[in-house]
């Protein structure tokens, strides 16, 4: 049992991850309420008031509720599953530019740039109920999965091949389970037109489908030519994406139920094989063999019910960590280099990982990509954890030649999980609770090895020049500026999220400098803030108060400043309390509605989220900005300190 739950129930002086979740989990399918501050590992404080008088019974114990302790599992029983590659298909009815309402498609705006990017491949991905075995010691668990699997199939394609992915909602139309049977699928962080981007409010109901059009071109379609058959700026290449449900207020629920999957794009630099081809970095690249997805998540399970033949999961923070849907799996490797595409699918947990050698010491690995973007130079990390925020992707290379055949190597997670089966430490100083998974070095390589990792991976695009600036200020407060504000809520620039209200507009093709500012008070949580649409470059970080945030501090210490602030292209910006980052973003090629939100899904569902739009013309931009300023004036709100004089 994790330490965090052992403290006195009367100690309610600390809010905990668990308490937050009570908001999310209450009655099975709640959305988390506004102020949700997560502190990682503190006491479990029961939040009912102390009984004095009254008729209300104390919450009756139920068979499975938040905070239940998952049944025990023996470590290293199951083999790490590799999600299958999604198979191409021919869709009927045929995909169309305008929504095929008669054929059962969900309402949407017409696909942008359809004629330029006619689909060359088609996929059919259904969200449907199924069962999944998280561990051999468990009976099957009810899930919602893409094509019934957890994680969903990996969609793998080449840049230059536009695809249609038809997401079909086959979820039960009458489910008492904790998910909500309406979905909208976001490809994190594809350069995708708004109507295919899984805007949180664009969910569709059971029985409908929706075609998401992924052009699979580099950002910069309008300004760059064609390189090796792909339009756009090849320096904007990204390789590891994540498709998941983005249903407003129910993202936590539906993702924990299983609506997750990986999406990989290959190009000349990263071709998905290891042969010497022109321009290839020759990283380990055979999917499922030397190029391994590791999709991390957290889950919590009820006691196994043999009568029903199930081990059900409860909507909650996990006390079991899973890799590709398995608890503490093992994976056989040979003495050569492997690439691991690590993706944290949340819903809320930050993973802090390191590789542990059989002798208990940390072993080095090399990070080659952050948030799907290759670094300029590889970053070898041999001291300290690699923090993986929700939705962050890290591609790492591990060279197993450093271990003799027969070695057991461990992936260590900083926060212990509940194992429940007494097990000796697998390595010196490594409790079994801290082991995420095990690598078994079973032999010499049989298919050779890739050459050494190049000293320079890719050339980064030049830092774009902004023509305007804007500030997004995240708060959780009692807005004093409004007469009607007597309560706290997640606010962005003093306003709650309203999917029908746009809070900033930008011009298609422009670049702006945006500042993300975390003024959420009394929070010792790092908010992983995600901006849809294009990758950004952090140019400046302001730390007004260094709050005890070991993970983030380690990132800063470990990354060379040049990399942290200038070079790493990102789409998830870790934002500790009283931190602000300035970043440069471009808004190219498409227009429409996009989002910024905290990717802690509890916060996301509590609407730590804001909408911004890309518009096509300068006159439209000016008109919309006037609307925004007028609206703010009418509410007595300050005009944002940046960008106000531009219109």
């Amino acid at each position, binding site marked *: 049992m994790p330490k965090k739950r052992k403290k006195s129930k009367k100690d309610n002086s600390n809010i905990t991850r668990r308490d937050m979740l009570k908001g999310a989990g209450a009655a099975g399918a709640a959305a988390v309420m*506004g102020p949700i501050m997560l502190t990682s590992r503190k006491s479990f404080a029961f939040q009912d008031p102390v*009984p004095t008088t009254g008729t209300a019974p104390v919450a009756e114990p139920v068979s499975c509720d938040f905070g239940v302790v998952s049944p025990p599992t023996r470590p290293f029983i199951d083999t790490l599953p590799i999600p299958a590659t999604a198979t191409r298909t021919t869709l009927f009815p045929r995909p169309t530019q305008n929504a095929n309402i008669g054929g059962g498609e969900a309402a949407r705006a017409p696909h942008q740039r359809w004629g330029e990017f006619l689909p060359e491949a088609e996929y059919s991905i259904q969200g449907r109920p199924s069962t999944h075995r998280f561990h051999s010691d468990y009976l099957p668990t009810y899930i919602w999965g893409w094509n019934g699997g957890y994680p969903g199939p990996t969609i793998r394609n080449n840049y230059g091949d536009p695809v249609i992915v038809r997401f079909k909602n086959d979820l039960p139309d009458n489910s008492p389970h904790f998910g909500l049977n309406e979905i909208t699928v976001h490809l994190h962080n594809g350069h995708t037109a708004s109507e295919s981007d899984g805007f949180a409010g664009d969910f569709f109901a059971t029985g*409908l489908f929706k075609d998401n059009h992924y052009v699979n071109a580099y950002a910069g379609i309008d300004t760059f030519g064609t390189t090796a058959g792909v339009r756009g700026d090849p320096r904007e290449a990204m390789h590891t994406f994540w498709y998941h449900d983005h249903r407003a207020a129910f993202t936590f629920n539906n993702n924990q139920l299983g609506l997750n999957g990986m999406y990989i794009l290959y190009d000349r630099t990263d071709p998905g094989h290891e042969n010497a081809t022109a321009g290839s970095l020759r990283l380990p690249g055979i999917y499922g063999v030397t190029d391994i997805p590791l999709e991390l998540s957290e889950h919590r399970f009820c006691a196994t019910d043999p009568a029903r033949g199930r081990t059900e999961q409860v909507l909650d923070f996990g006390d079991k960590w899973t890799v590709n849907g398995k608890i503490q799996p093992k994976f056989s490797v040979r003495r050569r280099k492997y690439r691991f595409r690590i993706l944290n699918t949340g819903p809320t947990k930050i993973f802090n990982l390191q590789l542990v050698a059989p002798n208990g010491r940390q072993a080095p690995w090399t990070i080659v990509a952050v948030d799907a973007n290759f670094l300029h130079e590889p970053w070898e990390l041999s001291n300290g954890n690699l923090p993986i925020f929700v939705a962050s992707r890290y591609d790492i290379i591990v060279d197993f030649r450093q271990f003799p055949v027969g070695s057991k190597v461990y992936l260590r997670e900083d926060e212990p999980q509940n194992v429940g089966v007494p097990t000796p430490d697998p390595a010196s100083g490594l409790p079994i609770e801290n082991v995420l998974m095990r690598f078994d070095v079973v032999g010499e390589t049989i298919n050779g090895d890739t050459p050494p990792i190049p000293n320079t991976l890719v050339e980064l695009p030049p830092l774009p020049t902004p023509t305007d600036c804007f500030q997004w200020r995240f708060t959780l407060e009692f807005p004093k500026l409004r007469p009607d504000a*007597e309560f706290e809520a997640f606010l962005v620039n003093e306003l709650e999220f309203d999917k029908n209200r746009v809070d900033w507009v930008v011009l298609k093709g422009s670049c702006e400098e945006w500042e993300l500012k975390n003024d959420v008070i009394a929070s010792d949580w790092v908010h992983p803030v995600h901006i849809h649409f294009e990758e950004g470059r952090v140019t400046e970080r302001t730390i007004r108060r260094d709050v005890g945030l070991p993970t983030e501090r380690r990132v800063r210490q470990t990354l060379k400043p040049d990399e942290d602030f200038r070079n790493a292209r990102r789409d998830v910006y870790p934002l500790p309390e009283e931190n602000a980052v300035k970043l440069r973003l471009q808004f190219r090629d498409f*227009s429409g509605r996009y989002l910024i939100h905290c990717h802690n899904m509890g916060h996301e569902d509590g609407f730590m989220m804001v909408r911004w739009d890309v*518009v096509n013309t300068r006159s439209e931009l000016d008109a919309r900005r006037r609307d925004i300023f007028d609206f703010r004036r009418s509410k007595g709100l300050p005009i944002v300190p940046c960008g106000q004089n531009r219109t």
Partner: protein
Amino acid sequence: MNRRDLLINFANRRAPVQRPDTPYRVGRFSNGVLLTHENKQVKFYDDLIHGRQAVINFMYANCTGACPLITEKLVQVHRALKDRMGKDLFMYSLTLYPEQDDPAALKKFATMHGALLPGWTFLTGDPYDLETIRYRLFRENHIKFDLDKGFHAAQLRIINDATNHWAHVSPNVSLETILQHISWLDPPKSIEEIREENKILQEKIDADIKLHGYRRTV
């Protein structure tokens, strides 16, 4: 199976929503005995929540800040949804200060704000019961905020006990958005209804694009 069969199957697949056992749900709400603004005793879960869709908020009668504005917004919500109010949709306004808000005070508040409407109940009772309900419904009780009633959660809690779903919305956003959030927890619709609504939505999107150049307000 062709598409039409599939759709028919969807239509036929619908079964009545099962109501899970009461004790399980009571623990999530509370079955405390409360008093309505009509001075009637009710059990919170059994009489007000069980199997129902409801919008719940906290207020107090002599609140001069947020409550009147929120109540005004709720009156607009009621007006928009009056055909359903009291039938399959309910509104509950619970007092934060039961010590000072007796049923008569709540009735006066409701009358003053034009909120004495069918399906809308104002509730008071034992402070412990109300506190329990507030804590359980608005589990955002960060010690630094929520123990101070002055900073009460003015969010609207939307529940549908029949489908076991909860959601929330800020009362400060537009009426249209509040109505949308409430509709998120509507009882399951048939595939015919879904398709009809989808068709109407597409018409709205098309009109919006025509007007604004892109999908902006729908």
